[in-house]
């Protein structure tokens, strides 16, 4: 009775181990990421060596996203998993924890804690929206690079050269954003959005940031928050407020209506990509395109004459 069981266990462990022994240099690496931004970075670093798929596509809200059974399967069949960390993927946390058979990498790992922002209402937690500070994002690119090199040392050269090239582009992007941001009238340098996604952006590029909801879209804005924001906008005479691609618009519309009732006309300056990128295949479907779109939209809208 005991022998067949032992035999079965032995066979099973052999099979389980054997998967890990597959020679990765013979084929493309299967990388699975959570957000599209991470996916874009992994694609740039990995180049031809990597097949990337992201669980969360354009318009998807990572704070609320719940993994389906298909997602769990995809995670477990990957060679490596990249996720943001810092509790961005709040609804998926336990799924990520249970994915033990595959190496999971939080791209925010390499960032020094004192470079991270701490939101006042979540003691001990950090603001996860790190991709809006291009410099900060560059360090995650390095983390990704190291992880890929670790997994597949044979192609280390490829990864390193891809990374170097990408970092140059990111540096150019960083400069571009700084210039555009500086071009806005200092009195009008305020971004008002649906949730607090842009704190890092604000800090890096000298803009004041106000969100209606807090750090996570899982919270619900109260009437007081709408009122206070509306009063703030009217008082500072801010020309435009912004909706986000992954968050419902009606909350911002309610703010706009309240501001108008206060006698000031604020425009909806455009749609920003906050927690997700644009459609695949478009310019905004890449990280660089997304950031450029955002800063262009912001700069144009805030420079409007009121």
């Amino acid at each position, binding site marked *: 009775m005991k022998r067949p069981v032992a035999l079965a266990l032995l066979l099973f462990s052999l099979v389980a181990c054997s998967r890990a022994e597959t020679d990765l240099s013979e084929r493309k690496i299967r990388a699975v990421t959570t957000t599209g931004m991470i996916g874009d970075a992994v694609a740039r670093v990995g180049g031809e060596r990597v097949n990337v798929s992201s669980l969360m596509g354009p*318009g998807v809200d990572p704070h609320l996203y719940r993994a389906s059974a298909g997602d769990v399967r995809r995670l477990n069949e990957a060679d490596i998993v990249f996720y943001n960390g810092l509790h961005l993927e709040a609804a998926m946390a336990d799924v990520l924890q249970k994915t033990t058979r595959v190496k999971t990498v939080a791209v925010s790992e390499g960032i020094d804690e004192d470079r991270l922002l701490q939101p006042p209402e979540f003691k001990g937690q950090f603001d996860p929206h790190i991709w809006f500070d291009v410099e900060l994002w560059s360090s995650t690119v390095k983390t990704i690079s190291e992880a890929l090199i670790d997994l597949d040392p044979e192609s280390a050269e490829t990864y390193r050269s891809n990374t170097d090239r990408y970092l140059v582009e990111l540096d150019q992007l960083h400069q571009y954003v700084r210039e555009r941001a500086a071009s806005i009238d200092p009195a009008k340098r305020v971004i008002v959005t649906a949730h607090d996604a842009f704190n890092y952006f604000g800090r890096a590029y000298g803009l004041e940031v106000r969100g209606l909801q807090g750090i996570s879209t899982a919270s619900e804005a109260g*009437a*007081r928050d709408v009122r206070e924001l509306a009063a703030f906008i009217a008082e500072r005479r801010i020309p435009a407020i912004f909706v986000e*691609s992954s968050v419902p618009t009606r909350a911002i519309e309610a703010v706009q209506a309240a501001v108008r009732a206060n006698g000031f006309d604020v425009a909806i300056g455009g749609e920003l990509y906050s927690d997700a990128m644009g459609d695949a295949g478009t310019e905004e479907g890449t990280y660089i395109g997304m950031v450029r779109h955002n800063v262009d939209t912001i700069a144009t809208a805030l420079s409007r004459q009121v």
Partner: protein
Amino acid sequence: MFEVLFGWVSDYTLRTVALGSATLGVVSGVLGSFALLRRQSLLGDALSHAALPGIAAAFLLTHSKAPLVLILGAGIAAWLGALLINGVVSTTRIKTDAAMGVVLSVFFGAGVVLLTYIQRLPDAGKAGLDKFLFGQAAALLGRDVVAMALLSAAVLLTVGLTWKELKLLTFDPGFAASLGFPVRALEAMLTTLLVVAIVIGLQAVGVVLMSALVVAPAAAARQWTDRFGVMVLISAVVGAFAGVAGALLSSTVERLPTGPTIVLMAITIVMISMLFAPHRGLLVRTVQERRNRRRLRSDVLLMDLYVLSLQHEGDHPHTSEAITAMRPEVTDVRPSLEALEERRLVARKDDGWVITDPGREVAQRLVAREESPEAELAEVLSEGEA
């Protein structure tokens, strides 16, 4: 404080949210009263949960996030849920409560599955379907409130016109049918009105919390009155009050979501009603019962002392121990005697107690009124005396 109470009239957001919530409170209060009296309060819960797949399906079919479309989907799904509940009850052996539970969980589960599927679609985040779980009252727009008001007016008008039919239906449907009223049709109409009430509230408080607003105002109102019309009115007022109070409270405290606050207000009113309402309140009833019991005990002791005084010459005192021995079922003889002493019906004498003249008068009155053995004995004895 002043600003909070009256500032809402001038502040756009507060005005909008308060008006929307008040409207929703009134309608759910009215329909909730009928549901409560028909013992169908759970139906509100089942139907609001059943609305979820309708919202998801409406979005999938039309790719529109216009509130009207989503709400129409919600209404259709809730109505189908109601049909299914009735169908299950009438064709199988399953009783209403189980049928409601089944429909609630199956529909809601289907809704969650659809939502999980939808979340991967582009634009899904923008539609904000998740917001229908708990509502987003703070984001009510002027046009939303107008739509809510129009629907509410239609519902209330219908209820007003068919008031006596609905009252009869709720009290005695068999008799209503015997009079020739189409009971099935009336019940369908009532269910439809309930669905509309639920659907009006979904944007503000969401699928999960809406059931509370159907039950709570009616439950609170029931405690305060025994008249049908008054109960419905109180229910509407409670609902409106909870709506406005919730809106005001969430406007003064930071990061307090409006929908859940409204529900909490309603529940608080229910708690207060359960405890403090005049005839049915728990506190009042307990106090009243205790007072009655104490009264009974002291009446009994007084009559005992009266009987004793008739059997003995003069003012012969009896110790409380002796009295306790006579009346072993009274556990607190001393405090009762002391209470009687306070009322000057008995007095201490030596180391015992004796009845006073005023006490005798009261005892005589008690004797005349009651039929207990003590009273009969006292009557016989006092006749002997006379």
